[in-house]
């Protein structure tokens, strides 16, 4: 190598060679000092110009730890994204939104209807519900109120209503023990004469034109089942009722339509209309199932029955949230347990295509996937803050946060729309509640899911009733005040009246 600037070097002088010859090459000289001052010692070979491998250089332990962390994050993200996408299904295009509603002008009536209204300790709301149902503008329908033999209060209210509308309302007394909703429905089915059977809950606030629209929907779509919209109204009562209301909104407004398209649909508990022939085929509802509505939906789906869903805000069936967080918790536990039962029963295996079966498995297991999702997010945050993980891994663990935040934005948009549609004032306070409630509600849902699994393992499958106060009926005079009666678990009395979600319909679904 050529020496660099030997600025101060004192080499042997070429011309001092002893031979006196003019030019004699000098002997090798020691390398000149201070070749370049203080430049450190860059290692020429330090530049590794070979391509860096695509996979990071981790030990086996690191691969396991980081790999599982990333896998969980990616799975959670996938769940959150699918949930988000289903939640927004109705709004994905203008046409799809138009398809979700009832016809503007209904077709002439073609079916006769039997409306089943089971009631249990519901004397405060049942009379009014029956009166409103009797106002339906459909030409051919009957109402069958089912009351328990041990519930004279409700029976009295039902009989009074029947007296007011003798040609429309019948009262059936259920003396089975223990009582539950599917048993009551099956009993009423024996006397029902309509070609279509509809189910309502005792506190439902039903629009007078609903039957005509449903009738038209049957004709337009030649469906075997029509699921109408149900909407909780009291979003401004508590932080969790806000979330509960939004769940309903996204479920009936949007997601259920996706399920109908996918041909696997967990039916709701009310405002559901099934052709009599199909109910005969299914032998009514499964009296042993905590989620009998979901169960019958799965059975009908597996035999190829078609379900049409329609949600028009003006004719939606209005309800209220459960009165306390505790009863909401019980209700959610029961649904989740019902889903577990349906999953275990395996009717979904008879679904015609593998795609549907996979979908069914996913939907029925959703509450539990969500429970995991909700619980794992704090875990990953703690991990990132405490453990030193590579930047890429840390970034991937944040991935599920993305769909969660988008979900929150969609929920805010939904809340705003809800307020506009139903003429309710949505305040800043409600948006703050929405945001702050995201995580607690997720924890709440996760807890309900865990409890459902626990109960199912223990073989506890008694009904836990949800009580109502009529809070959704703001347009009506206040009902005679009576504290909602809690019917505890294991009583074997009281039954469910809500549509069943696979997990949260939309709100909180993605976190």
């Amino acid at each position, binding site marked *: 190598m050529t020496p660099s600037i030997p600025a101060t070097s004192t080499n042997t002088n070429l011309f001092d060679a002893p031979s006196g010859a003019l030019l004699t090459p000098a002997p090798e000289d020691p390398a000149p000092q201070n070749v370049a001052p203080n430049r450190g010692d*860059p290692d020429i070979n330090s*530049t590794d110009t070979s391509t860096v491998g695509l996979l990071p250089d981790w030990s086996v332990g690191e691969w396991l730890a980081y790999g599982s962390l990333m896998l969980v994050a990616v799975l959670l993200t996938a769940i959150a994204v699918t949930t988000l996408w289903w939640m927004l299904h109705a709004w994905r295009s203008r046409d799809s939104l138009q398809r979700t509603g009832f016809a503007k002008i209904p077709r002439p009536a073609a079916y006769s209807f039997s409306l089943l209204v089971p009631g249990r300790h519901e004397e405060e709301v049942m009379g009014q519900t029956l009166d409103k149902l009797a106002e339906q503008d459909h030409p051919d329908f009957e109402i069958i109120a089912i009351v328990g033999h041990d519930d004279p209060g409700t029976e009295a209210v039902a009989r009074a209503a029947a007296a007011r509308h003798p040609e429309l309302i019948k009262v059936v007394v259920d003396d089975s023990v223990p009582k539950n909703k599917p048993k009551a429905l099956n009993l009423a089915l024996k006397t029902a004469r309509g070609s279509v059977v509809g189910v309502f809950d005792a506190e439902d606030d039903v629009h007078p034109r609903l039957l005509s629209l449903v009738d038209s929907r049957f004709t337009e779509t030649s469906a075997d089942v029509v699921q109408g919209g149900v909407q909780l109204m009291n979003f401004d009562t508590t932080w969790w009722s806000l979330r509960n209301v939004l769940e309903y909104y996204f479920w009936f407004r949007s997601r259920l339509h996706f399920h109908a398209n996918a041909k696997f649909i967990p039916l709701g508990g009310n405002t559901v209309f099934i052709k009599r022939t199909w109910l005969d*085929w299914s032998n009514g509802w499964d009296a042993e199932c905590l989620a009998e509505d979901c169960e019958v939906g799965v059975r009908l789906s597996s035999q190829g029955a078609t379900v049409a869903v329609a949600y028009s805000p003006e004719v939606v069936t209005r309800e209220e949230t459960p009165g306390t967080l505790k009863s909401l918790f019980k209700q959610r536990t029961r649904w989740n347990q019902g889903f577990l039962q349906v999953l275990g029963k395996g009717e979904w295996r008879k679904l*015609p295509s593998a795609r549907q079966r996979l979908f069914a498995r996913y939907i029925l297991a959703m509450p539990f996937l969500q429970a995991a999702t909700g619980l794992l997010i704090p875990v990953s945050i703690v991990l990132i803050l405490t453990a030193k993980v590579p*930047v890429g891994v840390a970034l991937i663990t944040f991935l599920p946060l993305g769909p969660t935040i*988008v979900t929150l934005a969609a929920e805010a948009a939904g809340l705003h729309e809800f307020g506009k549609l139903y003429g309710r004032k949505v305040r800043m306070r409600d948006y703050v509640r929405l945001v702050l409630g995201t995580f607690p509600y997720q924890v709440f849902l996760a807890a309900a899911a865990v409890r459902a699994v626990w109960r199912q393992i223990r073989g506890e499958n008694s009904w836990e009733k949800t009580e109502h106060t009529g809070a959704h009926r703001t347009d009506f005079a206040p009902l005679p005040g009576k504290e909602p009666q809690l019917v505890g678990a294991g009583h074997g009395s009281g039954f469910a009246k809500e549509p069943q979600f696979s997990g949260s319909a939309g709100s909180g679904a993605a976190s």
Partner: protein
Amino acid sequence: MSTTTHRTPAHQMPQSPGRRPIVPTRVRKSPPKNGPHAWYRWRRVHGRAPLWLLPTLLITAVVQAWNMAGSPQRIDDEGTYVAQAWAITNLGELAHYTYWYDHPPLGWIQIAGYAQLTGAFDRWDTSVMAGREAMLVAAVISTALLWLLARKTGLGRGMATLAALLFALSPLAIQFHRTVYLDNIATAWLLGALILAMSRKHQLAEFVGAAVMFGIAVLTKETYLLALPLLAWVMFHSAYPATRRYTLAVASTMLVLVGSGYILFAAVKGELLPGDNRVSLFDGIAFQLSSRVSSGSITDPDSLINRTLAMWWQLDPVFITTGIVSTLAGLFIKRLRPYAVLVVGLVLFMFRPGSYLPVPYVIMLIPFAALCIAGVTSWILAHLRRGNSAGKRVSAMTGIAGLIIAVVIAVPLWTTQLRGMLLANLDASTVQAQDWITSNVPLTDRLIVDDAMWVDLVKAGFARDNVIWYYKLDTDSDVMDASPNGWQDSDYIVTTDSMRTFPDQFPQIAQALNNSEIVASFGEGFQQVDVRRIFPEGLAAREEATAERAERLSSVGIELVTNPSLTFEGETVSLLEAGQIDARILAAIGQRASLNALTIASFPVVHGESGTMRRQVLFSASDGVALAPGSPAADDLQRWLESLNGFFAVSSVTQTQDGVLATFSTVQPTNLLPSR
């Protein structure tokens, strides 16, 4: 009104579902979505698009690719982006120096991805050209997207093609599209985002796509955030009111999320906020927003902004003029208005007082100006044929006259510019300088260089720490630590136009320039690349020593000329007497003269060097015998020359038609000669 269900013909209803388990199977009757049917329908609707689009893309690709390595000369910025891309795949780091959040990294990550997938770095001797190849791909994609955008804006196929061709063929466009600027990549993403924002079919998904694409555009080049109002306008305008609440909420959240990804990245690395001895996102943004030197006033003819504008103007005055006029006209044409407003807004933004105007700023303007030109042309043609009012007809007449004038002026201008771009090799000087360095500078030496040659020199075998991007010697603490004596720790500085432009900004570089002298120089004018030898002892001391050495060399040279066994031809005698011949050559000739009578034909100048000091010697005859290639005399002389060692070693000996050529290294050892 349709319904949410799967359709089933009424006659296939269950006949008697009461009798279990008889449940009828259902048959789909709707035609399959895919298959020949869909293809025919697509062809019927879009069949003529490829007839216009494909030739346009072919022209774009050919014109951009032809001589893309020769023109324009590669510049420092290109080298930086390519070096950063190279660092990703070869060093596993985000940049070849500490990444300091000067730009979001997505732009060169994409270049790195392209290079990795296609092996572009292996395909080119000059690494920057791998980046230019990625730009070629980006330009072709952008051209196609601009065509689509023009169609979505309501232009006919011909006018869409006009917009695309203006975008692809304006000399201004070609110059900038060839250059490795992140803006070129961002343009493609922005155009894609706009197309999706105009969608009507699957609006939710496509708005989300638009938001993500726009986010990528901004993370590719942050200045593209200026197009956000345009995107918001286009999106809001095309959003259906019934679903707008959701589509816009989700899309804007997605955009925020993509942007937050960058912030999160900084946070996870612990580099979000400024701190001691570390880079931070905050500092990077603060630098871009406030610390950048203003480009000066538009009224100052020597200001940077005026130089930038002059450069744009010189490339294509016709496109710029037509573009501005069309944009102003476009403000009054509804479907062009968003794009016209964007262009006008960007131009006004450019002239804000105290602004820093990046040279590639024009890249974002080109597609939308082209769109406005095509849109206005379309309007003119439409109103020429069926102008429904006198005013509009007059406008159309004026417009067509203007267009004709523009075309008449453009033809010769474009021809000249395009000829240069397709034929001139402006990068030759940089390539030659690199070649000179790799064949003459030892790998242990330290060089201060323009980033344009950074990767190439590192690939040639120089240690990363010994190839210093000049910008870093004054700004990067790691680099400063590695050179505690600053410029004095380097041996060479290679200067290009960009380094010569602002020497005062970088004190170390200014010092290095002041204390170095050119040892090899290539090209001239803007293209000139000089390799300068740095003298740590200072130029004054060096010059004194050089003068003294010349004197000594001269005296030895005069002595040699008198040697009877040596024959000197041509100007060799005067060179020897002037002291311009390397001491090692003098020593070698003197030594060899004791064995043979030699004829020295010349002391050829090494290409690129000035010739004040000659380090090559051509022997044409030995003992009166011509030194033909392969002759025993030539072989013998070569062997002897190669046997010289120590300070006298030759770096190469070659046998040529004219004789034996010996070359010595650039740096001759001092004090080989006796002092007087």
